[in-house]
């Protein structure tokens, strides 16, 4: 046995940020607005909770400017659970992100669900010790966020609807664009980078490895065990569930069921079992019925 000094330790490197996201793989991350919901999420087997002031369905219904959560509420949620806690900052609002970091939150979501604070710039995420997750609707957007320091990507979907169609479109788009890059000749990648509006080095890395350099979850409109299992079969590393749990008739049962379906996504018998006896799903809104200016997925670029 060797006893050794810690003088060569490096804190908050890219590898420990991306590695943190690796630890969440195969899991469900649930939106919670208070400590009681956080405990329900943890008991169900969530890998993390997302602390926010209002779930997306309420943000959509109530309107107004949606901002970072109250620090007192985030503290209470951190105290209530032993799993990691995430919290949302507005797009471009680096001071909200600084506050969230100072609270000791484990992951910051620079989120289109909140009202954007900057219509030109996203947060320079390399400046933070806390890792970031960002939304994306396609590969170019995902790579731009990674270039800014995101350690995890989630496809956006259309939050607060209970309509999974946009989540499906976004995860399919991202994975299809990755497969397309993998099949290109090396001299085609220069134009691909131009078309994706993404840095060439990241395009090259994706083409060579056949995957994003960070974990890819999916989000936005997932409301049932079947929705979660479909996202996993489409290649997601895990799922975020927002309004789908606590806007449903029986949040405890539904939280458990979505976690079980995510873990056993490739086993239809298990997903069928998880789908029984859940009561009402959230009522939901068809994305097509939402006027374009109210679509959250189109925020961020």
């Amino acid at each position: 046995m060797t006893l050794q000094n810690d003088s060569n330790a490096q804190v908050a490197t890219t590898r420990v940020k991306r590695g943190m996201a690796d630890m969440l793989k195969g899991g469900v991350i649930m939106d919670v607005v208070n400590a009681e919901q956080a405990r329900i999420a943890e008991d169900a087997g969530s890998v993390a909770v997302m602390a926010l002031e209002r779930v997306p369905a309420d943000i959509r219904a109530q309107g107004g400017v949606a901002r970072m959560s109250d620090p007192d509420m985030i503290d209470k949620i951190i105290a209530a659970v032993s799993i990691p806690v995430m919290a949302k900052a507005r797009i471009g609002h680096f001071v909200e992100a600084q506050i969230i970091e100072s609270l000791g939150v484990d992951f910051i979501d620079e989120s289109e669900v909140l009202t954007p604070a900057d219509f030109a710039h996203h947060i320079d995420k390399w400046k933070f010790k806390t890792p970031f997750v960002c939304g994306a609707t396609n590969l170019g957007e995902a790579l731009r966020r990674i270039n800014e320091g995101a350690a995890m990507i989630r496809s956006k979907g259309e939050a607060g609807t209970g309509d999974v169609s946009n989540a499906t479109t976004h995860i399919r788009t991202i994975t299809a664009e990755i497969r397309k890059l993998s099949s290109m000749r090396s001299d085609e990648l220069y134009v691909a980078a131009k078309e994706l509006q993404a840095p060439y080095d990241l395009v090259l890395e994706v083409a060579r490895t056949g995957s994003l350099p960070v974990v890819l979850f999916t989000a936005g409109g997932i409301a049932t065990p079947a929705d979660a299992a479909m996202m996993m079969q489409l290649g997601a590393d895990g799922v975020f569930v927002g309004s789908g749990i606590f806007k449903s008739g029986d949040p405890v049962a539904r939280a458990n069921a979505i976690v079980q379906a995510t873990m056993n996504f490739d086993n239809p018998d298990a997903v069928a079992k998880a789908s029984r006896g859940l009561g009402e799903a959230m009522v939901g809104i068809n994305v097509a019925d939402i006027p374009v200016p109210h679509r959250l997925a189109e925020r961020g670029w």
Partner: protein
Amino acid sequence: MGASPIIGVLAIQGDVREHSKMLVESGAVVREVKHASDFAGVAGLVIPGGESTTMGILADKNNLFEPLRAAARELPVYGSCAGLIMLADVVTDARLDQPTIGGLHITAQRNAFGRQRDSFEIDLDIDAIGAPAFHAIFIRAPLVTSVGPQVEVLCAMKESVSRDDTHSQDERIVAVRQGNLLATSFHPELTSDLRFHQYFIEMVRSA
């Protein structure tokens, strides 16, 4: 034991894929283990990194504790990070009802270095796997705060990098072995250094 032992990787959640890749590159055949029936025929088991609270809750709900405890009695088992917590007899700074597999006579303190912003990488000299130093990645990592007499300490750090001053002991134990059980606070599977996985496969081959 044949040339390529079958090693199970507990696949509730976490970095299953990274462990599987390292094991395959080290010459093992990998099987993801998710149901009690998946354990038949495995010669060793890896409990991956992930969230120990989640793994404990979901192992319980999916009736996996019985086969996991049998595996820890009978087979070589390696746990990294959350896996170390799952193998520990006693866990502190966890939910009071956190179930573990147990069998490894240690006390593990969860998140002993702080929250995610305090996660770090460090080079560690570990005699069991030889030179050069091993690049160890600690993510919301646990620490071994006490060990039973049968536990061999493979690696201990002198001081904590935590800003939390509550840890006063001089030895910060981050890798242990007790007979068929191997555990590390850090994640060899997030590097490309196969030595820990090769060490574990050697344990499986000589079991």
